[in-house]
């Protein structure tokens, strides 16, 4: 049994940020990630981030991932890739470890699954940063090859350089749907239409404007009725919806597409947290069932912390801040602090408030506040 001070599940922005802070305070720190590449969703973010300098505006997500990884290495964080945490009990993680950590081995592997080794890791503190999972949408024909999550299409195109299809229908005009549409255009696909069931575009205007300028129609109050095809998607039927979300008879239209991307939101990937015994709370604004946590990011199970999309679906910038907060607080609970940590925590909380302000984000701020208030009552006190 391997023993560490701090084990972190997930090497995305939240997990890496948490690891850096933990290691800076003298914790032996191990990050586990099931993927062959570290960085979580950042490795697919080929676009530049916007916002403040503090949150690396103007930097591409993939570069942010590289910076975080470099910093983690400097602080002597161990990052174990291809490591699937399949169980958690007390403060022990059961891991199936499939890769050597040498990324050349995994990228040349094709479809073959390397044999896994079993590892057990006992950690004094655990930070879960398992991210979000894409929501599915079921309609007749949705099991045909060619129907996929927008995130899956983005991974294929941006990480593995495989174009998922040539003629795309994007379902959902939130930021994911808009950004992935633009990136698929850049990769050489034709985006036939972006449809959105709500009467308004959900994502930022700046992203919507980019794809409109490229000539892609964005049809609000529209849904996908069915997919047709023999062995794969050959056609999509879409229709207008009324105010109660029902398709309007006679408004059906056929689109000649080979790929249907589903971008209808994400939810916290709370399985491991749930298995650990963490109490969940239902919050539609945060993506559904989310682990209850207090202002120190600690869950209802003492010693287990959460950060990033797992603690409410938001953005990479908030995930970074929550990760830092979880890392500092987990280390502090082991008696490992740096001078000035109280001020650092206050500054992080201030930045989180500013990131969650404005008409677009205020509902999330309110939902997060509600979750933390529940956490302050239900989670253990120091």
């Amino acid at each position, binding site marked *: 049994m391997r023993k560490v001070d701090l084990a972190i599940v997930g090497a995305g922005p939240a997990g890496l940020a948490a690891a850096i802070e933990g290691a800076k305070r003298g914790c032996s720190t191990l990050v586990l990630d099931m993927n062959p590449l570290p960085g979580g969703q950042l490795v697919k973010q080929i676009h530049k981030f916007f916002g403040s300098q503090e949150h690396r505006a103007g930097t591409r997500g993939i570069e942010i991932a590289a910076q975080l990884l470099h910093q983690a290495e400097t602080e002597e964080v161990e990052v174990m890739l291809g490591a699937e945490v399949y169980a958690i009990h007390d403060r022990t993680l059961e891991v199936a470890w499939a890769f050597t950590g040498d990324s050349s081995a995994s990228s040349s592997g094709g479809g073959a699954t390397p044999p896994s080794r079993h590892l057990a890791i006992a950690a004094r503190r655990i930070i879960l940063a398992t991210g979000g999972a894409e929501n*599915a949408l079921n309609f007749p024909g949705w099991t045909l090859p060619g129907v996929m999550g927008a995130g899956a299409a983005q991974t294929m195109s941006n990480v593995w350089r495989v174009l998922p299809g040539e003629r795309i229908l994007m379902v959902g005009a939130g930021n994911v749907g808009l950004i992935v549409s633009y990136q698929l255009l850049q990769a050489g696909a034709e985006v036939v239409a972006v449809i959105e069931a709500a009467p308004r575009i959900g994502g930022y205007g700046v992203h919507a404007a980019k794809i409109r300028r490229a000539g892609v129609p964005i049809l609000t109050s529209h849904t996908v009725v069915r997919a047709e095809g023999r062995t794969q998607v050959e056609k999509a039927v879409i229709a207008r919806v009324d105010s109660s979300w029902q398709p309007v008879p006679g408004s059906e239209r056929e689109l000649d597409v080979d790929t249907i991307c589903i971008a209808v939101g994400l939810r916290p990937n709370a399985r491991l947290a749930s298995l650990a015994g963490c109490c969940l709370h239902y919050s539609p604004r945060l993506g559904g069932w989310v682990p209850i946590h207090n202002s120190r990011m600690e869950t209802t199970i003492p010693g287990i912390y959460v950060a990033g999309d797992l603690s409410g679906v938001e953005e990479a910038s908030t995930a970074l801040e929550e990760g830092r907060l979880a890392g500092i607080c987990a280390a502090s609970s082991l008696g490992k602090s740096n001078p000035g940590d109280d001020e650092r925590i206050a500054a992080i909380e201030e930045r989180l408030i500013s990131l969650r302000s404005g008409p677009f984000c205020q509902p999330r701020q309110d939902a997060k506040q509600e979750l933390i208030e529940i956490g302050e009552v239900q989670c253990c006190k120091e």
Partner: protein
Amino acid sequence: MMDDDTIVCRCEEVTVGQIRQAIREGAADVTGVKRRTRAGMGLCQGRTCEKIVMRILAQELGKPLSEFAPATVRPPVQPITFGLLAEGTDG
């Protein structure tokens, strides 16, 4: 209104109609649907369909989504081989 023939759980090929039937027979939560239909018991363990099952439950029983919690999570939460389990508990 979802068509009865539409698949919900693609791993176990469970349809909307089968889930509605299970609810009529008394399934009142995700676990109840799972036990009666196997929805969520395949390779992905409900990762894809669980939220759709919750939505059907809410619609059929006329209750808000917040009343339907995810099914009990049990290890392994990722698909692993029996060979790996046989390696024992100390790696």
